[in-house]
């Protein structure tokens, strides 16, 4: 697709990417509400995701109160508790993390970072948001129906999910399934946009290997999501049939409290396979954008190119591919054929290799860097620590025999919160501190930011690190109360109380962050152009914040990869992607030849 020209040919060929017909808003309604501008859609996505995330946060406080101080809160009964954990899990994983990383960051950053004026299908992009909003509303409505939301656990395992022993089995589960299906339809619309925009609407010169890792992460995560979500859709639809039409896809012959049921012949394990065929890639749908973004945060703040860029790309692609052959490691104790254990333990531990390489490359980026400990950098460092911690406990759970005693205990809860809760959320915070000036033209308040960082980072570690040890004792997860046992010591109850207090403190620190978001919008220090001295295109727009159409009259032309930091021979310690070599200001006594000579 590319042809080389003679080396003397320094003249830039004319713009060959056809200008797209931009959609132009005509009223307040079409500018801010039914907007087709990806930047506005991104903010809409983010606001809805953060709002519903706050609901999930409050639910986590309630369940922590019950766990830390059982018998103290009359207003939480067992049914409430199981509803809280279910809604907390589902909201956090799907409606917050997936929506925020792809719908929020994806929409904002893809067109800007690849040098496009907008997404390629703006109308479908808008529909995507509105269907997402509808999905969220349907989900929220389940709090207000008789019986309340479903309490089947976020995994929604049948048969219990639709039987009467489980809270919310009348309407809650139906609304949950409907909401998930809506989410998937909405996401698919958005996902088509992200993929096609990245493939077909880049700026001139923006080859795949010149893209920043943020885009790589979002791109591969979107591809994963497009492949994985159909499995959840199929599973939801079939369970919906089982519930409403009384088909027996997942329902074997059963007795429900002494009564024989009309179901027969279905397989509950089939649902688990479908669910985890979606569920495991889902982990990477959240993790890959985080990997990408954190790479860029580290590189910018260490003023150094990301170490081993090619390896980073390969690792993202490799992890994405492997993500589809490991799903049954969630099912080691599910009763599936035990010989599957050999295969899935092996594939799972193989994933550790590219993942570990990513970690090494992040810390090697710091080596011989010029490290600025800005707020985004602090969050990036916190990500590395929590991710390594959560990643290695994954090696426990992925290794089939080690998983047997630990599965369904608090160890699992601690593991996945560390690795796909705390770690990606650290990146989300880092990313918000990093890109807030681009969105608003102002910096977030540093003092509040420092407070928010330290409380969140240390607090989250204090919550989840000791929690692993509850799992070693054998404390099971999803227990409304531990009750009387012979093996759980009293000190474990004290630890539970401590975790609850820490969780409340960390939770309230998030309110400071939210306040900062609103306060700095008006009162923050006015940001310079490109305050972090980044090389990527989103900081090189004509206006900051970027206006409709992103770039000025002409689309940018890209001359280099995204990581030209501290290039020997150049005066500045960064060269933007759209700066031609002839425009680079050289350090004293250097020539263009020096600039090139030291590049290996």
């Amino acid at each position: 697709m590319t042809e080389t020209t003679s080396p003397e040919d320094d003249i830039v060929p004319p713009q060959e990417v056809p200008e797209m017909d931009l959609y132009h808003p005509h009223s307040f309604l079409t500018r801010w509400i039914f907007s087709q501008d990806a930047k506005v859609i991104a903010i809409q996505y983010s606001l809805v995701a953060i709002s519903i995330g706050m609901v999930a946060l409050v639910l986590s406080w309630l369940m922590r109160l019950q766990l830390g101080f059982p018998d103290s809160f009359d207003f939480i009964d067992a049914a409430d508790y199981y509803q809280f954990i279910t809604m907390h899990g589902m909201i956090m994983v799907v409606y917050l993390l997936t929506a925020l990383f792809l719908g929020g960051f994806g929409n904002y950053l893809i067109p800007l970072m690849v040098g496009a004026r907008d997404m390629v299908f703006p109308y479908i992009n808008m529909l995507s948001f509105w269907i997402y909003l509808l999905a969220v509303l349907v989900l929220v409505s389940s709090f207000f129906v008789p019986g309340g939301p479903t309490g089947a656990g976020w995994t929604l395992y049948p048969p219990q999910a639709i039987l009467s022993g489980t809270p919310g089995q009348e309407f809650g589960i139906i609304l949950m399934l409907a909401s998930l299906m809506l989410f998937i339809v909405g996401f698919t619309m958005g996902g088509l946009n992200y993929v096609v925009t990245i493939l077909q609407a880049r700026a001139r010169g923006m080859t795949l290997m010149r893209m920043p890792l943020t885009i790589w992460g979002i791109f591969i995560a979107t591809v994963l999501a497009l492949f994985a979500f159909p499995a959840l859709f199929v599973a939801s639809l079939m369970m919906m049939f089982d519930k409403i039409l009384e088909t027996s896809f997942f329902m074997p012959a059963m007795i429900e409290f002494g009564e024989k049921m009309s179901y027969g012949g279905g397989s509950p394990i089939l649902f688990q396979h479908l669910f985890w065929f979606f569920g495991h890639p889902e982990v990477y749908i959240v993790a890959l954008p985080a990997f990408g973004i954190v790479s860029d945060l580290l590189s910018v703040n260490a003023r150094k190119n990301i170490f081993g860029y090619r390896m980073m790309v390969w690792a993202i692609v490799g992890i994405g591919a492997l993500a589809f052959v490991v799903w049954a490691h969630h099912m080691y104790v599910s009763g599936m054929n035990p010989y599957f254990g050999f295969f899935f333990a092996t594939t799972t531990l193989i994933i550790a290799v590219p993942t570990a390489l990513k970690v090494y490359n992040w810390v090697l980026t710091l080596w011989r860097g010029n490290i600025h400990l800005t707020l985004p950098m602090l969050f990036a460092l916190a990500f590395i620590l929590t991710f390594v911690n959560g990643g290695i406990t994954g090696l426990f759970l992925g290794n089939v025999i080690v998983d047997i005693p630990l599965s369904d205990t608090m160890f699992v809860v601690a593991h996945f919160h560390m690795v796909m809760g705390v770690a990606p959320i650290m990146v989300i915070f880092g990313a918000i501190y990093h890109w807030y000036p681009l969105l608003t033209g102002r910096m977030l308040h540093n003092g509040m930011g420092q407070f928010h960082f330290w409380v969140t980072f240390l607090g989250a570690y204090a919550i989840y690190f000791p929690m692993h040890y509850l799992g070693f004792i054998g404390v099971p997860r999803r227990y409304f109360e531990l009750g009387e046992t012979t093996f759980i010591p009293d000190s474990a109850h004290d630890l539970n109380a401590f975790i609850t207090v820490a969780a409340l403190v960390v939770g309230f620190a998030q309110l400071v962050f939210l306040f900062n978001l609103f306060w700095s919008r008006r009162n923050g220090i006015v940001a310079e152009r490109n305050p972090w001295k980044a090389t990527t295109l989103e900081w090189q727009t004509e206006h900051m914040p970027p206006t409709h159409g992103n770039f000025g009259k002409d689309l940018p032309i890209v001359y280099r990869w995204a990581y030209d930091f501290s290039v020997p021979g150049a005066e500045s310690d960064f060269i933007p992607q759209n700066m031609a070599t002839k425009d680079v200001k050289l350090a004293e006594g250097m020539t263009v030849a020096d600039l090139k000579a030291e590049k290996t």
Partner: protein
Amino acid sequence: MSFFSEIASKPWTDEQIKVDDQFKGHTFTLPKAMLGLRVLLVVVTMFFTLLAIAYSGRMTFEDWQSLPEPGLLWFNTGLLLVSSVVFRWTKSATQQGRNGKVKLGLFLVGALAFAFLIGQLIVWQQLADLGHFASANPANGFFYLITGLHGLHLLGGLVAWGRTTLRVMRGKIGQEKLLLSVEMCALYWSFLLVVWLAMFLLLLVT
């Protein structure tokens, strides 16, 4: 250049910079909408593949009871086949710019597709009359699920078909855009035909 050799390149070297500077900004020489459609078709393929896997996984259980296949299904399959062929014919008519033929082709395609959908509904009616309800056993459930989903996808295609046809009627569409619309619809129709044949085969052999 293939994807793999592309991601093996070193973007920071002088040689690679010269190559990369010539890059035009898009990976495929396809219209964006066509690429979008193709990605969508991959997603839908995934969707039906998972259903097929679930179906064949369930089939291995001892208590599996197959469903009778009404003869009408063969007729419906024929309708869909003809509809798809006519769409190909319409496509070449569009390429030649013969608008009269295009209009005729589009009408025929729509009529055949609607006939297919009605035919499928009659099949459901026949099966229900024989007492084969969805809840009777998993094979029935799968039959209704798969045929229903396929029908819904065809309905979705008919929306796109309707938009294209309306525009042709009003004559408010440029030749290039019309060709793209017709090409995309024709591709979608062929795709749904293939999906149907695969699913029909699966239902037949069991």
